[in-house]
Structure formats: structure tokens, C-alpha cells
């Protein structure tokens, strides 16, 4: 029986054999705490929206240092925003926003947004691909990790996915990427955790029935048939379509704004009742090597348009969430694979850089500006980059901890090491949240103790036949075979001796006929 059902079904009883964080549930039976526990929405109603700004956003022209304006201007005279055009912020005189970002300015002034200054990581990588992979995987600069940070989180929370899904606890996709093929962000240790394993029917197809027309041939007839099956088969198509079809009235969103189009769908799905935890939207064009601004007016042009789209879209989204009554359930943040160079180039643009601000939106965000403006020397060499003040993974960690209520083991397992907790989410949002999903469905493989130092006991269930248990590292390499043989169907326990292995996260993968299951384990020093 699932824990939630269990609680629900037995509330009238006087004694429950369950402990929650050391308190018996009965002892708390009259407190609002328990009702939070038994409230269906309690552990799953927080939603995260990730906004990817593809191409490397020029953070310095987005969040502009007023306290160091002269050096800022000097470093990029051809694209610097004139001081008098920079949008001012309530209660903060040192920093301003790009003039196109009036919507975001309003959100800031209304206490619904935070800025994390100079987010990045040591030894920044300036390649689009590699830097994007770093941000999506949550790896160090020189470390190769073949899974995404959200994928690892969802694998930790829903270790048996996709087996047994959808189910009553999670009838909806764990994560949804809008309008794109699933990215590394959502890749778990075993498989993509977004949408479903039969992913290609892209989101727009489900919601709006758009796809390549089938040719008027026999092949086209069969293609139409297979597509129809694919559509019916999409595990979560029904719930998504239903949520989309719940068609709550929404506030208007700006036209001709591809980010707004995507966020509008997200709001519609959240309001429509999807329990999906993470959404990702993306828009591109930030690779502004040249003509970042108009030559004679740095406040307009390519980058200004992108920031206006961002600002208008996010403002409309936030207003809509409030209108729909779901504002307190949603936060969103922006990221880009890197910022751009402090010094502009002669093509009225900027080249690939390093750290840049991240914007975090939501009514439950601890509003304000975290960190100081980047220091800009009076004479900037073209190679000078903005160093990071905050590791981008500290932002992830803080969201997982304060928004998704992950404990310290989860944090370390998902993010592969410990990161600083940042005050970007309001406190007190995690009371009474328990982790239900890990205990549901069939765990074919488990490890105890976990975390462990040298040795842990691995328990697994085989249906019989060839059975494989292997240990895989974060790069996806097999580092040890624990079992690789024919076995009689049964439950077995073997020991994983990690002697000689570096501390860190490893994955135990069970393969038995068509079944596979992967769980993370954490080796500590």
C-alpha cells in the first residue's frame, strides 16, 4: 500500500505505525501539519520552470552595474546602455536593468524576483556545446557527466520510473520540455525522465496536432496509422491533452513572442492540473557576436529585443499565474550557457564569456539581489572575464532543498557533491513534506546502507535467467560487475565493496531480460 493511501485510509485509527521525522503521526493528528501530509497536493505541488536562453546571454547588459558605471561604459562604449536609460530598482541603487525589461523591473519592485549575480563555475568553458552540457548536467568544468541534474533528481525521487507509471501518485509526466526534443537536463541515469520514453511525438503534436503531413500514398496511409497508434500510446498524452483542454481563461500574453507562447502553455498545464514538477522552455538568439545593439542606439537592436521578449513573457506569465491562483506554486529561473566578454568587440557585439546573472521569479522567491556587481577594471583587456561569485549548482541545490524539500543525502546524490545553500527561496515551504514516491512501485534493486563508506549490501530481485548488476560511474562507464550470470528467479543480496573507488555517486544497474532499473548510491569518505 502506498504511504499516502495508507495515511488516508487510516486517519480515524488512533495509532499509526508510522513515524514522520521522528514524530508519531498520531501525536500530530490534530495539527495542520498532518493535514498538510494527507493533503493530496502537499508533496507535489511545487513546480519549477527552467528558462534556457540559448547562445550565451550578455549578462552585463541585462543586469547593469550602476556603482561602477564609468568602467562598464569604458569597457564597451559601442554597446553600453546610457546611464539615464537604465531601469532603476526599488531599494537598490547599485544595480539596474536593461531598458527593455520593464516587466521584469516591475516584478522586482513587487518583490517577486531575485537576481543571483555572477553565477558560473571555476575554469569556465567557452564552447556552446560543452558549456551547455555543463549547465545541464551540473558537472564541473573538467568533468564529464552523462546525465542531467533534473534527470538525476527525478530518478532519485521516482526510482522506478517508467515501470509502473503513470500511477495514482504521479499520473502525469515527471517533466516536460516544451517544443523541443528532450535535453540533457532531463536525462536520468537510465533514461530520459521527461515526457515519456516514447518521446518523439512532440509536445506541439499532442496539444495542437501539428506534424508533417503524410503523403497521399500507401506509405502515407500506413504512416498515418502508425502515428495514430503512437499518439494513443504516448503514456502521458491523455493527461496532457486533458490538462491543456481544461482551458482555464488566461490573461493575455504578448504576441510574436516565442517564449511567451511556451510559458502560456506551461501556465495552462499547471492550472489544468498536471502534477508535473519541472518544465523547461528555451529560446535562442543570444549568441550576439555582432550587431548586438543598433550602432547609433545601444538601447535597441537584437539583444534588446530578446530581453524585451524575456521580460514581457515572464511578466505575463507571472501575472497569469496570479490570476489563475497558482502563483505560490511556481518558481522559474533563467540560465544561459555562459555570459559574454566584458569588453565589446568592433562588430558592435560581444564574444563568449563566463559568469552571468541568473534571474529567479516567483511569489515565494526571496526577492532582492544576491551578491555584488561584477568588478570591472578601468582598463579592460579583451580576455578578461567575469569571475563567478556563486556556483550555478548552488542555485540548483537551493531550489532542490528549499523548493523541492530534498534532504542532504538527496542533494549530494543529485548534485554529486555539496554546494552552498543560497537565500533565494523563502523559508518554511517544506514543513510536513514527506517523500512518498521513492517508496512506491516495485524496487527491483536497493542498497543498504546508503550513503556508505566502503561497503553496502545490494538487494535485487531477478525473474530468473541472465541477470546483470553493474556499477556505473557518473560518466556512464561500467566500473564493476557485481553479477553477470544465469540465476534462478529469487531475491538476492550481494555486497558491493567499493574499496579503491573514489568517494562520490555511483549507479547500480540491474538488467534482467527486458527489465532494467538504475539507482544511485552515494559513497562518502
Amino acid at each position: 500500500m502506498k504511504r499516502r493511501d495508507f495515511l488516508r485510509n487510516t486517519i480515524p485509527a488512533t495509532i499509526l505505525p508510522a513515524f514522520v521525522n521522528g514524530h508519531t503521526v498520531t501525536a500530530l493528528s490534530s495539527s495542520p501539519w498532518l493535514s498538510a501530509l494527507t493533503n493530496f497536493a502537499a508533496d507535489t505541488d511545487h513546480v519549477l520552470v527552467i528558462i534556457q536562453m540559448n547562445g550565451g546571454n550578455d549578462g552585463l547588459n541585462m543586469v547593469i552595474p550602476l556603482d561602477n558605471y564609468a568602467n562598464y561604459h569604458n569597457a564597451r562604449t559601442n554597446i553600453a546602455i546610457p546611464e539615464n536609460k537604465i531601469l532603476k530598482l526599488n531599494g537598490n541603487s547599485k544595480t539596474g536593468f536593461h531598458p527593455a525589461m520593464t516587466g521584469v523591473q516591475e516584478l522586482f519592485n513587487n518583490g517577486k524576483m531575485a537576481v543571483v549575480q555572477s553565477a558560473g563555475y571555476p575554469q569556465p568553458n567557452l564552447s556552446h556545446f560543452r558549456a551547455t552540457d555543463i549547465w545541464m548536467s551540473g558537472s564541473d568544468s573538467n568533468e564529464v557527466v552523462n546525465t542531467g541534474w533534473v534527470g538525476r533528481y527525478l530518478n532519485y525521487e521516482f526510482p522506478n520510473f517508467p515501470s509502473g507509471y503513470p500511477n495514482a501518485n504521479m499520473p502525469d509526466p515527471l517533466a516536460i520540455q516544451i517544443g523541443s526534443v528532450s535535453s540533457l537536463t532531463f536525462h536520468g541515469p537510465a533514461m530520459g525522465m521527461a515526457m515519456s520514453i516514447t518521446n518523439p511525438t512532440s509536445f506541439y503534436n499532442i496539444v495542437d496536432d501539428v506534424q508533417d503531413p503524410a503523403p497521399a500514398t500507401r506509405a502515407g496511409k500506413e504512416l498515418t496509422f502508425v502515428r495514430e497508434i503512437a499518439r494513443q500510446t504516448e503514456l502521458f498524452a491523455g493527461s496532457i491533452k486533458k490538462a491543456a483542454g481544461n482551458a482555464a481563461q488566461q490573461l493575455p500574453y504578448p504576441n510574436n513572442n516565442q517564449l511567451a507562447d511556451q510559458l502560456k502553455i506551461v501556465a495552462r498545464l499547471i492550472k489544468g492540473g498536471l502534477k508535473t514538477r519541472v518544465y523547461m522552455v528555451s529560446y535562442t538568439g543570444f549568441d550576439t557576436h555582432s550587431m548586438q545593439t543598433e550602432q547609433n542606439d545601444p538601447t535597441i537592436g537584437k539583444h534588446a529585443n530578446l530581453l524585451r521578449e524575456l521580460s514581457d513573457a515572464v511578466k505575463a506569465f507571472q501575472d497569469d499565474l496570479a490570476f489563475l491562483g497558482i502563483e505560490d506554486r511556481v518558481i522559474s529561473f533563467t540560465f544561459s550557457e555562459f555570459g559574454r566578454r566584458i569588453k565589446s568587440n568592433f562588430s558592435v557585439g560581444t564574444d563568449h564569456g563566463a559568469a552571468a546573472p541568473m534571474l529567479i521569479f516567483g511569489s515565494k522567491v526571496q526577492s532582492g539581489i544576491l551578491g555584488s556587481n561584477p568588478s570591472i577594471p578601468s582598463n579592460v583587456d579583451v580576455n578578461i572575464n567575469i569571475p563567478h561569485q556563486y556556483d550555478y549548482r548552488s542555485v540548483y541545490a537551493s531550489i532542490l532543498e528549499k523548493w523541492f524539500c530534498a534532504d542532504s543525502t538527496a542533494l549530494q546524490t543529485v548534485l554529486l557533491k555539496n554546494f552552498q545553500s543560497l537565500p533565494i527561496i523563502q523559508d518554511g515551504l517544506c514543513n510536513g513534506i514527506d517523500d512518498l514516491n521513492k517508496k512506491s512501485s516495485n524496487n527491483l534493486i536497493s542498497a543498504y546502507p546508503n550513503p556508505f563508506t566502503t561497503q553496502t549490501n545490494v538487494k535485487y530481485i531477478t525473474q530468473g535467467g541472465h541477470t546483470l548488476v553493474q556499477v556505473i560511474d557518473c560518466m556512464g562507464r561500467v566500473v564493476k560487475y557485481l553479477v553477470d550470470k544465469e540465476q534462478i528467479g529469487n531475491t538476492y543480496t550481494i555486497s558491493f565493496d567499493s574499496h579503491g573507488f573514489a568517494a562520490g555517486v555511483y549507479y547500480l544497474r540491474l538488467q534482467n531480460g527486458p527489465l532494467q532499473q538504475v539507482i544511485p548510491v552515494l559513497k562518502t569518505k
Partner: protein
Amino acid sequence: MDRRTFLTAGSIKKKSLSKSNNTGARTNSGIAPYSGSWGKNEVVHLLKRTMFGAAPADIDYFLSKTMDQSVEELLTITSPLPSPPLKDYDTSGTQAPDNNIDTGTTWVNDHNTDDVIGERRKSSFKKWWIGVMLNQPRNIREKMTLFWHNHFATEMASTQQARYAYKHHTLLRNNCLGSFKALARAISIDPLMLVYQNGELNQKGAPDENFARELQELFTLGKENNPNYTEDDVKAAARVLTGWQNNEETNTSYFTPERHDTGNKTFSSFYNNTTIAGVSGDTGGDAELDALINMIFSKGAEASKYIVKELYRWFVYYEVDEAAEQNVILPLAQMLQDRDWDIKPVVMTLLKSEHFFDVANQGCLIKSPIDFVIGVCREMQVKFPDNSEYTTTYGLWNSLLFNCYVLQQDPGDPPSVSGWPAYYQMPSFHELWINNNTYPLRTQLTDSLIHYGYTINGFQLKIDVIEFAKSLSNPGDAKSLLEESLSILYRIDLSETIKEQLKREILLTGQTNDYYWTNAWNTYIANPSDMMAYQTVSSRLNELYRYLLALPEFQLS
């Protein structure tokens, strides 16, 4: 399952899915030789239909030939039969272990009566068959063997004698392009068929009509004229066939005159009231069987049309419209009769025809599970260990066999004597292969082949996307990489919009400049041992191929 159980159990019903309004384009093209362009599109079409998937090396090979040469080469089988299946099993838990043969050597010449050994041998046979299809020589033999297996359907589950199965399938393989009539005769006294259709129980005084019925209804004449024979014809044919039995030890069938009904057998007007005179003595069985086969094949129009239509459904499309009937089926059926039931010229003419290469008939076959599983391995050039590593190899073949099984096509064990419903069940035919259960399983297979693959004895069965990309002519060019991959994998082109989207969102990670892919690829090629460079390209290629192999387009051949 015998036929009556099959009929009463109810055939597979089509799922409540409304048929598409798109009825598909029709064509009037016939069997005149195709004289249009001969390029990659045509080569891939020919290969996907005549082999399992279009392996890139085969595409290149036939691109250097003409269409005539290609078809002729595919139909000229010079490669020896595959070496026989090996003992890949242990003898634990058996009453009569076959310790007289070593593991790793073949069991096909060793008689054994142990049921457990029998099961293990049958399993060995099926794995081996998967291996034979994976390693098929550059000809049509394996596709034809599977065709005949579906036509003269038998279930290995009906016997513990795996050697019967090996013998039976060797017969099909050896005669895959030979005389239909000769094959029908040989099948009639083939040990596996004698078990499966109760022929070995068929004796004087207590005839068993099972095979006599299917010989006419399913194996030669069909039932289009509803039926082409009478119930009395079934009884008479059963009497002709009395007296045949199997010898497990010699792995042969034999005739026992004492069990044979030597009375005269008279047939209905459908057969012109033919009488097959009873023949006594040792030669009676053969003589009367010859007479029976001659009589059945004297119904030339019915028998030829029936098998030609099956070939058409196998190689072209399941729907035989009036134009195809007139322009393809009838002329080929006539040819089959004129050529004394020789299958090869008929298949040759079909595969060289305008009709076969007609665009209307390209890309419209839904891949059978075996075609899907074997085809994806061959097209994506999945590597297997050396054959000397037979325990590993058989284990890997077994994982693919299991996939064929869960996808509803267990080679060696079709659901009934009618073969797989996809080849006879109107109106859905091939569409029966794809449903809400099997489609995600197909995708799961390709997903897992791309990610972790299947590991046994430390060997990983896996699609190596980097090796695949390297085999393409210009993998550093994102557009070329995608186009060339599609030209191998797909029969229906994607729109420019979708291609552009795949290129941008997967290969370029959202960037608009193709150079970024080129740069990543070149960096990897220059530093192949650099994990980071490897990861940068492999993660994108993984996602690209995972996507391509999961789209509905990949289900068509």
C-alpha cells in the same frame, strides 16, 4: 494449436481504430521491367524488402551495380548454408544428458530423448536463427526462408525433437527459390510437419484429416473460391496420406505399407472427379503422394494465384487491388505455371518490375518484428563478438530473440498453422504488428540499444552511434549527417522544417550555425580518447538516433 481450435478461438480482431480516410494511391504499373532511375532510394527499397534492413555496406555494394545485376545477384544464392546451431547449454537437471557431444559443437547429428535437452536445443536453434539472419549473406535467402516458414507454418512447440526443426528449416532454406510444387511435396512428409499436423498418426481405418485439409486450404490452393475443395476431398486426401511416420533416431520420416489405406480415392468435380488408385507395397506412399500433389497442382490457376499473392503481400504491399490483380498477380501466376512452379523467375520478375519500384509501393510495408529487430541491428551496424565466443554470442542473440517474441513474432513458433495474422487477417494485415503494446516496446528496444544496450559476459550489445556516424560520408556536416542517416533508415522523407528542427535542437543544441557541430565533431576526431570531446558528440548523436529510431517513419520499410 490446430486449425479448428484456432478458428473457434476467434482470430485476432482489429482494435477499434478507425481506418484512415487516406486510402493510398493506386497504381496501374505492371511487371514490365523497371527502367527508371537507379540510385540510393531504389537500392534501399530493394534491400529493405529482400533482406533484413539496408545495411550501409550492402547499399554501397549495389549502388555500383545496375538494377538487373542487383536483383539477379540477390536471387543467385551461392553462399553455403550457415553452419549448424551449437550446444550452448549445460545438461543440469536432465535424465539423458547429451554428454557425448561437447559444448560449442553442434547437436544436430545427435539423437537424444530427454525433454529438457529438447527444450534447450530448440532454444539453441532459435538463437542460432537470429544469428543467421543477422549475419545473412548478401542474398534473399533469409527473407525467403521466413516467407516459407510463414507459409508452411509449423510450431516447434509441437515436438521435443529439435532436430526435426533444424531439418525442416534446412529444407525451407535449401528450396527457398526452388519449385513450389516440389517444396509442397517435401513438406508433406517432413518430420516436423508430420508431428505438427498429426500426419504420423494418420493411418488406415483412422485417418487424421488435419494435414490433408491444410495442404489444400493453406498451403497450396487457398480458399478464395470458398472453398476450392469439398469435405470429401479432405477425407480422400487424408487417406492418400496414410502410413507416414517418423523415426526420431534417424531424424527421418518413413512409410509403413501396413498403415496405408490402399483403397482407391475419388475426388470431387473440383478435381475433375479424379481417382487416385490405391497402391500397395513400399512404394505406395510415394506414388500416391505424387499423384495427390499432381492433382492439386493441376489446379494451376488457383495454386499459382494463391502463392503469388502471398509473395506480393510479402514483398510489395498487403492490399491487392484490382489493378495489381490484373497487371501483376495474374501474369506472374501464369508465369509460375509456365515455368513448372519455379519460384525464382516469378520473384525475379516481381522485384525487377515497374510495379515493385513504383513510388506508390515504396515505404508502405510495416516492418514485422523480426524485420525491425534484425534490421535495426544491421542498419546501425551493431557489433557482435567473434563466433568463437559462442556462449556470449548466443546470449546476445537470445536477447534479440526475446524482443522478437514480445513484439509478437517468435521465429519457429507462429501462433497457428495459418502463420502470423499480419499476413492473412483482413483488413488490417501488417497493421496488426503495431499496437499500443508493441509500439512502445519497439521504442524501448531501440532506446536501450542506444543507451545501455544489453550486456552479457561483459560484452555490451549496443548501437555505437559514433561508429555509425563515422561510416557516413561527411559526418562533420550536420545537414549531411542527418540527410545520409535518413537515406539509410527511412523510406519517407521528413520535411525540411522537421529536419531543420532536429538539426538545430539536437545536433546544434539550439545554435543556428552548423559550424558548432563541425567543430565538435572535428575536435573529437582529432582527440578520440578525450572523454569530453567524445561525450559532446556522443550525447548529441545518441539523442538524434534515439529520436529517429522511435518515430513512426522508422516502422515502415
